[in-house]
């Protein structure tokens, strides 16, 4: 949510980059949900895979790149990043069950899970965008360009 991060003076672009990717995740999430709502299972399958892939990519960018760098600099492995990792794990479990519901063509189950996932994801994103990304921009500001290039190469 760009609206809560008016801290341009300290922005190095990492936060902006990640916020932009949150929006892309939102978009693929909504497309998959639309398709399930319309019981268009073929489209749902494709959209869901795109969504699951983007989520994996996002978790990878954070857990394998940004968080370790942040922890190295702050010496703070048990801090906020640990909480974000736990929430990623929670989201992974829901995504796993969404996939099962999709395979069983159980729209009711899928939509109940996707509703739950949405609230879970949005409160998680809100915390990252409102607090953590600002910290990351401050702490990792000097490595901005290098990290952005590395983020781009995460597939």
């Amino acid at each position: 949510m760009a609206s809560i991060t008016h801290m341009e003076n300290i922005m190095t672009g990492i936060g902006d980059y990640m916020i932009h990717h949150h929006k892309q995740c939102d978009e693929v999430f909504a497309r998959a949900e639309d398709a399930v709502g319309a019981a268009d299972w073929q489209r749902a399958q494709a959209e869901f895979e795109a969504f699951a892939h983007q989520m994996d990519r996002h978790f990878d960018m954070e857990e394998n790149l940004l968080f370790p760098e942040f922890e190295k600099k702050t010496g703070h492995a048990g801090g906020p990043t640990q909480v974000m990792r736990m929430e990623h794990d929670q989201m992974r479990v829901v995504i796993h069950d969404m996939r099962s519901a999709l395979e069983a063509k159980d729209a009711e189950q899928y939509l109940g899970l996707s509703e739950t996932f949405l609230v879970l994801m949005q409160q998680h994103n809100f915390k990252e965008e409102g607090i953590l990304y600002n910290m990351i921009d401050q702490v990792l500001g000097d490595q901005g360009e290098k990290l952005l290039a590395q983020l781009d190469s995460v597939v």
Partner: protein
Amino acid sequence: MNQAGLQIEQGPPISVPFRFFLVAPVFLLLAAAALLWRGPMVFEARLSPAAIAIAHLFALGFMAMIMIGAMMQMLPVLQGSPVPKPRATAAVTHAGVGLGTLALAAGFLFGERWLLKAGVLALAAGFLVFVAALLVCLGRAPSQNHTVRAMWMAVLSLLVAVVFGVMLAMLFGWGIAPPNSSVHSLHPGWSLLGWTGLLVVGVGFELVPMLQMTPHYPKPMTRYLSVAILALLVLWSAVLWIDDGRWGAFAVACAVAMAVAYMLFAVMTMVLQQRRRRRLPDVTLDFWRVGMGSLIGASLAWGVRVAWPGPWPESMDILIGVLAMFGFAGSVISGMLYKIMPFLAWFHLQSMCGPGTLAPNMKKILPDARQRLQFRSQVLALVLFCAAALWPGPFVYPAALALAATAVLLEMNMLIVVRAYRDNLKQMRA
């Protein structure tokens, strides 16, 4: 920078918000009972003791109760700043506001001054503890983004509303006239245009785009609207105070500007929701639409009411009150409850699940059909209340019965959530 903020991930225990939510429909039921007992006369004079009692059962027992519970949950989670001593703060606030509202309403209904006095003291104590806890919490928030700013403004407005409320209570309870006649306007003004309205606007800026996946509100609006409303509210109050409650041209201009500001928010919300990315039926979305429609109606009617001196019939003021409190605040509050309660039940259950297993999802915890039924009953009650404001004779009793019905359905839905939570907890521990 305060890094401790994000470590408090789980928010307060589930009992903290739920105790506020669960008791709220009981106050709706009491309001309905009072209306059935006193009949059409309630809607014939807005300042009759029975009307004041019913308005406060609704505004304090229902609206404030749920708003407080939701804030105690959301602030720690979303802003990374815990409420100090959450259980104790919740217990004192809950008891103070709950018992205080009962005593205040009973004091007005039965004409018992001692009850009214006791009620005001309990309410003041409950609100002060809540406001103090929230101010500490907001002061510690690691990021002073505009949701935090909106909450500052809402909580400070609540404090002002409570102070004016106590002044009015001194009049009714102790026979001490308020220092200024404007207090009669300023108390409802700060309660609705300040505390309630600013909280909905501030929270709406974040939650509407998040939950329905709409485009964001325009930046100038998120930056300036709440501040502009608060500034107008302060100016309006100062002018009314100086003129000892008489509405001069400047007070009228401030009021009309506030009405326009709220209409802008409502129209923008409806436009954004029209462009939402998530197209599936959603009861929360429908509640917001009814809420925004009512906000437009209430603002328009109030703007016209203050801009043209009248004489206006009493029914106009009552209709504005019904639209603002029941139509706007009541709808938005019920809509938010249907996201907050099932999610919290799921979230707490999930955190106790073993790795790889999943708690029942939100719609298993509270099925759509039940939410939809309650939504319809609440809209019916709203329509009947609007009719009763204009024609009390034929419509007051049907309105009261519809309010009772929707209160029962809402409580039942809440209890379904609680039961799902308890049953699953038992299964997990077995």
